[in-house]
């Protein structure tokens, strides 16, 4: 069976696809923000001088990087109810994605911290600043600037990985597309349209990263 692609069908179902894209964007942004927190916290434990903390962070990173995201999604989705925690699928999706991304982000930040000369913290210490303030005011701002390109990369991966949440009934872009395909039986047009929407969202994300970088450079802050 062959047919000429007819994108008027995709246009007709665009509202449903856009609604799916909005869920994709929402789930991804929430996971990105939560992943930033998880990633930074895990990273600080990982580079901590307290052995048990560093060890726990190491174990977390190995486990969460080692579990396929689809498996992690299914575990979170089916296990939390067993523990008496009833969560909507969207929440389970955000938890699984932010845990996974947090593990990868932790390693990105660790590289960032390692690239900052020790003199930066020493100068602050010599002035009497405490370690917490040194982190907040001196180190983390520089780490974020340095890791921005890798971070944008990781965020693009996360947005694409969010398509896996369709497996736990989150009606994001992929699942919305599948529903339209089931009704119209026009997979080519619908999935191509979905692919296009993913590309548009990721291009936006990387443009956003570029803008942040340009803004910092404009203030003479980016030296690397």
């Amino acid at each position: 069976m062959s047919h000429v692609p007819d994108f008027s069908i995709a246009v007709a179902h665009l509202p449903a696809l856009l609604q799916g894209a909005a869920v994709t964007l929402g789930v991804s942004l929430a996971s990105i923000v939560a992943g930033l927190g998880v990633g930074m916290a895990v990273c600080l434990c990982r580079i901590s001088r307290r052995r048990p903390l560093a060890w726990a962070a190491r174990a977390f990173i190995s486990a969460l990087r080692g579990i396929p995201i689809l498996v992690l999604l299914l575990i979170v989705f089916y296990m939390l109810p067993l523990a008496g925690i009833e969560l909507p699928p969207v929440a389970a999706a955000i938890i699984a994605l932010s845990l996974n991304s947090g593990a990868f982000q932790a390693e990105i930040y660790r590289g960032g911290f390692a690239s900052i000369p020790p003199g930066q913290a020493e100068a602050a210490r010599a002035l009497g600043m405490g370690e917490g303030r040194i982190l907040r005011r001196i180190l983390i701002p520089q780490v974020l600037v340095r890791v921005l390109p890798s971070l944008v990369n990781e965020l693009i991966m996360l947005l694409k990985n969010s398509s896996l949440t369709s497996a736990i009934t989150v009606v994001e872009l992929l699942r919305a597309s599948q529903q339209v395909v089931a009704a119209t039986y026009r997979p080519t047009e619908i999935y191509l349209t979905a692919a296009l929407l993913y590309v548009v969202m990721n291009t936006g994300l990387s443009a956003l990263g570029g803008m942040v970088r340009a803004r910092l450079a404009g203030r003479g802050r980016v030296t690397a």
Partner: protein
Amino acid sequence: MSKKAASLPPIIEIRKLRKRFGGTEVLRGIDLRVYPSEVVCLIGPSGSGKSTLLRCINVLETYDEGEVRVNGELMGYEEVFGRDRRRASPARLRESRRDLGMVFQQFNLWPHMSAQDNVTEALVSVRGKSRAQAEALGTAMLEKVGLADKLDSYPANLSGGQQQRVAIARALAMEPSIMLFDEPTSALDPELVGDVLEVMRSLAAEGMTMVVVTHEMGFAAEVADRVYFLEGGQVVEEGPPAELFNAPKSPRLGAFLSGWNRRNA
């Protein structure tokens, strides 16, 4: 001991100081005294331990044995009655660094902050000054080092000499009674060294107590009250620069000075 110091107790007193890095002992029983308003220069070949010694004074390095006292207070350790001393708590350590300003070879300015913010950061976060007070003081300090027009510049847009002067202003703003300099001109292009030395000279003239690790023998000869020559983690010779430079007693200092003269002839 210099004339300035005649009757006052030492402001820095170091006794039998030992420091190991792994299996290597880099400080092997150092004794050193600095009296108020003195300028003391530490010279010696690289690897002699002079930078490590300086960094033990404000406990950027923890020392193993002996003691470092600043204004009589033991640095880096707390004395526990009837027991071995223990490492000072972070809060105690911060408090004990109050009188000490430090300037580094690599400047260590924070690249994400303007010159002004580099100077005011610790004034606000450590000294608890208001934004306005901090900025007034910061501006005054940057004027003092000749950079009144660079308040809003970021380190990346300043020359090495300007960066080092911002770093000096940053330390001075905390109103320390002692300034530690760790090879402050070694990372500078030759034509930029003069401006930094000029600022240091005027500080010395104002009566600031200074400990300076340096390779600038001219500066040491001209400004120092006393010079310590270190080699292999020990003080080999100590005294007024005129004595050390013109009539070195130890053959090792003699060799060090003639090597320096050859390189800088």
